[in-house]
């Protein structure tokens, strides 16, 4: 009790330096915790970009490539798969639903995805969240498109805006615009914080309509263009798609289904379990996590150094205080105890403040971080790993306090009492 009183009084006496020390520890701790939480959020956001989908099927290539071009809008497929194969596989009894996905065109740097209404019905992300509309609704007409939230925001589109799709993904103006066949915005999606926000969705037939009059990969000459008005959904036949998502009736059947698709005789296909591929990919990227952690430990170390400097400089000013304590009967080990206790108290205060600071930041910035960076801040307030970090920090602070304490102990009693000339 005496210790606590003495320590608090002594710290109060140097309130400015004490506050600065506590703040520097608090900032280090909150950075350490924030990095840890951001890491958890990034993993969660990453592996939960798609959920409730049992398999993703595409042309045979690598699982990583397949997941990148379907879920993350990155890279391209090596091959398409024929629509017949898709229809064929769709009939397997173990399959509950499918979402076809057709890629290849772009609109001012954003992907254009050809799909059908099942996309709005079955595509899930982050557990059981579904694709929802902020304005308008699904594409009904052949020339309807639905925009991801970011596409609408960045390009300033509203319901009813006309959209010209370009051949191939391009930044800025397209290489070859399908300007004879403009589309109309029928719906805009709610922001999801996933790559869904950065794509334009249209029907498979709409995608097909763009290229219906193309011959051998080139745009038609003026006399061969089929006018937009003459095209209707039933006149168009879908020939190929890039990939499709599969929901199985049961998880146990997923394994069998995956094998069945991977050994499909008519066409070389690849079926992957998205979550499995995502967690493999995440493990591959785990070194980034290590780098982040090293940086935050360094910040904690800097915080400790600041505390060491503050305590050691204060020690000079406190020679007299120490000497008086010794003179009234305090033993030298009690002086050590007092100083170590002070630094432990400072560290504990810093940790508590740091924890509240990081929680406060999360609470305030959560919606913004989610929509802007796609970081999904969920999970417990504390994980056991974080607790271990805090305990290590507390022990570290205590040990650092020993350095000035032992110095103080070695100072002679008369050192603080004798008047220096």
């Amino acid at each position, binding site marked *: 009790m005496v210790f606590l009183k003495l320590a608090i009084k002594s710290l109060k006496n140097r309130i400015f330096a004490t506050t600065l020390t506590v703040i520097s520890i608090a900032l280090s701790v909150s950075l350490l915790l924030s990095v840890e939480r951001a890491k958890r959020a990034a993993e969660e956001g990453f592996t939960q970009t798609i959920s409730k989908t049992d398999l993703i099927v595409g042309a045979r290539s690598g699982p990583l490539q397949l997941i990148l071009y379907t879920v993350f809008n990155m890279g391209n497929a090596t091959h398409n798969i024929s629509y017949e194969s898709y229809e064929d596989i769709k009939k397997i009894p173990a399959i509950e639903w499918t979402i076809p996905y057709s890629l290849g065109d772009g609109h001012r740097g954003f992907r254009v995805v050809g799909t059908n209404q099942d996309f709005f019905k079955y595509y899930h992300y982050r557990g059981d969240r579904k694709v929802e509309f902020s304005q308008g609704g699904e594409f009904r007409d052949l020339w309807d498109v639905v925009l991801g939230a970011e596409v609408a925001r960045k390009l300033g589109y509203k319901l009813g805006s006309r959209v010209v799709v370009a051949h191939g993904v391009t930044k800025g103006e397209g290489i070859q615009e399908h300007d004879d066949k403009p589309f109309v915005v029928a719906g805009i999606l709610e922001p999801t914080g996933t790559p869904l926000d950065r794509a334009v969705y249209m029907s498979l037939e709409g995608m097909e309509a763009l290229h219906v009059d193309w011959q051998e990969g080139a745009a038609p000459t003026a006399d061969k263009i089929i006018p937009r008005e003459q095209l209707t959904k039933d006149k168009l036949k879908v020939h190929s798609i890039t990939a499709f998502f599969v929901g199985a009736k049961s*998880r146990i059947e997923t*394994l069998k289904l995956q094998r069945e698709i991977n050994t499909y005789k008519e066409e070389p296909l690849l079926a992957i379990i998205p979550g499995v591929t995502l*967690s493999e990919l995440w493990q591959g990227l785990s070194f980034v996590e290590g780098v982040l952690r090293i940086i935050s430990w360094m910040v904690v170390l800097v915080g400790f150094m600041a505390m060491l400097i503050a305590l050691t400089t204060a020690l000079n000013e406190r020679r007299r205080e120490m000497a008086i304590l010794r003179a009234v009967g305090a033993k030298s080990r009690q002086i050590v105890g007092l100083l170590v206790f002070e630094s432990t108290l400072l560290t504990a205060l810093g940790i508590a403040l740091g924890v509240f600071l990081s929680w406060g930041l999360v609470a305030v910035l959560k919606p913004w971080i989610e929509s802007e960076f796609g970081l999904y801040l969920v999970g417990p307030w504390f994980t056991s790993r974080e607790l271990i970090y805090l305990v290590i920090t507390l022990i570290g602070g205590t040990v650092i306090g020993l350095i000035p304490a032992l110095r103080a102990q070695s100072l002679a009693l008369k050192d603080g009492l004798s008047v220096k000339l």
Partner: protein
Amino acid sequence: MFKVLLLSTMVFAAREHGAHLHGAGKISMAFDGKRGKIELHVPAESLYGFEHEAKSKKDRQKKEQALLKLEEKISEMIVLDPSLKCEIKKEIFEVNQQKNHAEVEAEFGVSCEAPVAGSEISFHMQKVFPRLRKVQVDVVADGVQKSLQVTNNGDSLGLK
């Protein structure tokens, strides 16, 4: 970053083409609530030390012993949370014998008293088969899809 992506593609690609790598196995597990299935693909060499056709009496014995061990010790190799009270039962054992290589394919049925999703599974492959160095484990449990590369005894995977 790019290098890592490239490297991972290569690694996956090799696995995808069914590369037969001694010491490396694959386990796929799927659970619907309390029921589940475990599929195991392991090079025969990692289980009983050779991959030619077991013609001699000694070889046949070795093979049989190894397969019996796999059947008996599976619940020591793949340890589900004891509170779930799971039972792992052999369903199909097949040795896919090719000219110079052989692969053991095994299927087990799992039945538990509580849902497996949300629990933790730990793996002790080398304790039973020391030649099995690396096992790629893929797990699907209700809404959870996870994977882990098991290289040490005691490596575990949380299904949350």
